[in-house]
C-alpha cells in the first residue's frame, strides 16, 4: 500500500498534528519506509487464527461503585495551561 502526500495530510489531520508542506515530503518518505517493513506481514496466511489483543487471558475486574478519589481540583488545575473560576479555558466553540 503506497502513500501519497494527500494521505499524509489526511492522517495528520486525523491525528490533530499540524504539518507543513515541507514536512509532508520528509514524512511521506519516512512513513513509506516503515509501511514497507510492515508489509512483510501480508505474506503470512492467517486464516482462522484468533487475534491476540493481550498476553494474559484475564477478565475485566469489577468493583463496588464507590467514591475512591478525593476532590483535588485545585492541585490538578495548577498545572493546566489556562483556567478561570475552576474551569479549563479553551477557544470559543459555540457562537
Amino acid at each position: 500500500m503506497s502513500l501519497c502526500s494527500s494521505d499524509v495530510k489526511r492522517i495528520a489531520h486525523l491525528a490533530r498534528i499540524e504539518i507543513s508542506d515541507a514536512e509532508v515530503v520528509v514524512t511521506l518518505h519516512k512513513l513509506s519506509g516503515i509501511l514497507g517493513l510492515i508489509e512483510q506481514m501480508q505474506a503470512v496466511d492467517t486464516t482462522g487464527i484468533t487475534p491476540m489483543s493481550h498476553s494474559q487471558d484475564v477478565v475485566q475486574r469489577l468493583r463496588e461503585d464507590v467514591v475512591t478519589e478525593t476532590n483535588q481540583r485545585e492541585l490538578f488545575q495548577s498545572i493546566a495551561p489556562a483556567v478561570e473560576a475552576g474551569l479549563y479555558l479553551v477557544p470559543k466553540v459555540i457562537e
Partner: protein
Amino acid sequence: MINKSLKQLGSMLQAKEISSVELTQEYLNRIAVLNPEINAYITVDADNTLAQAKAADQMLASGKSGALTGIPIAQKDIFVAKGWKTTCGSKMLETFIGPYNANVIERFDAAGAVNLGKTNMDEFAMGSSNETSYFGKVQNPWDRSRVPGGSSGGSAAAVAARLCAAATGTDTGGSIRQPASLCGLSGLKPTYGLVSRYGMIAFASSLDQAGPMAKSCEDMALMMNVMTGFDERDSTSLQREKEDYTRDLNKPLAGLKVGLPKEYFAEGLGADVAKVVEGAIAEYRKLGAEIVDISLPNTMLSIPVYYVLAPAEASSNLSRFDGVRYGHRAAEYTDLMDMYCKSRAEGFGAEVKRRILIGTYVLSAGYYDAYYLKAQQIRRLIAQDFENAFKQCDIIMGPTAPSTAFKAGEKADDPVSMYLQDIYTIAVNLAGLPGMSIPAGFAEQEGKPLPVGIQVIGNYFDEARMLNVGHAYQQVTDWHLQMPEGI
C-alpha cells in the same frame, strides 16, 4: 562504595557504618561532576532527595527498615512522582509537575528507598538510542561518542557510571534489555501484569512493563520484591501471591535445559556479539546446563507486527495530550482545532509524530483488517512459538541486541535500521513473557571495550528461576563488576 551491591549497602546502613544522607550525598556529588556530560538525569532535586534520605535514616533508627531502606534509586522519567517534574523526555511535559505518585514510586517510597532523580529517556519511550529525548542525548559511559541504547538510556548510563545504586526502567519492545546490554548492566522486564502501570506514562499499554536495572541479578531480585504486586488501579495488574524473588538465587543449575533459538544466531547478528554469547553458553555448560537447539520461526515477523500494534496503541494513548488540561499549549492559535494541531505539532518530536501517524493510519477506516487485525493474528503465532519452545527447554538464551553500542547519529535519521535493534527483544513483549539481559563480556571497537549482554527469556512468572540463572553466572564471572574508565 560505588561498586557495592544493594545487599552490602543495606548491611552498612543497618549497621550504621554509613547513613542514608551520607550515601545519598556521595551519589549527588558524583552526579554534579559527571551528569553535565553524560546527561543521564533530566531532573535532580537535592533538597527533595536529601529529605527522603533523612526520613530513611529515621526509619533505620527505628528498626522498621527493609532491604532497600536508605538506598538511592534513580527513577526513569516516565513514572509520575508527586512534586517532581515528570517529562517523559518530551517538550510536551517540559513543565509538568507530578500531582500524584505512580505505583512504582509509591512502592519504593514505602520501602524507604531514596529517589535520586529522574532519568533521561527517548521521548515517550519511543527509541533505541536515547537520541529522541527533548532534553538531549545521553552518552554511553563506556565510550562517550556512542549511544547508551534506549529507551531507558538514562537509567542504563546512570547505573553504568555509578550515578545511582540501581535504577528503574520500562520495556515495551526492549527498552530495559537493549540499554542494559549496551551499557554492561543487568536489566529485567517482568511478565506482563506483575508491575503496576498506574502512573507510568502509557506508550503501548498491552506491551509496557516496568522492571529493575542494576549491577547484578541479586540486586534485581531485591528490587523485584519491592516493585511487583497487585494494584487495583491498573486494570491489567495480576492478582497473585506475593513472591520472594531471592528465594532461588543459589540453586544449582545442574540439569537446566537451555534452548538456543536458531533464528537468534542467523544473519544480522554481529560476529563480535556472537562470539561473546557463545562464550557465555560454554560457561553455562560448565555450570551443568544442558543446551538444546530450538526454533522460534516467526521471529522476523515480530518487528512488522510491533510497528503496527505499538503505534496503534500509542496513537490512542497520546491523544490525551491536547493542550487543555496539562502539557504544552501553543502560544498562538485561531480556534480550538488549530490549538490542538499546533500544540501537538510543537509539543511532540519527530519520532513520536511518526509513530502517531503510523498508528492513526493503520487504525483508519478501511485498513483495520489489513494491518491491526492481521498483526494481532501474527502476534498469536509468535506467542505460540514460545509455547512450543518451552516444551523443550526451561529457559531460552541468545543475544540481547545484534550489535554493541553504535555511534550517536549513526542511525538517527533511519527509523527502519533503528527498529532492527530490537529484533531479539520485541517478540518477548508481544508474548508477554519475562526477559532479562546480563553482561557477558566485551567486544573491542576503536580500542575501547564495549559491553555485550546475553538475553535470558523465561516462561510466564519464571522470574525467580531467571534470576537464579543469572546469579549463578555472576558467581563465576565478573563481567557485571567491570566499570568504565574515568568515572
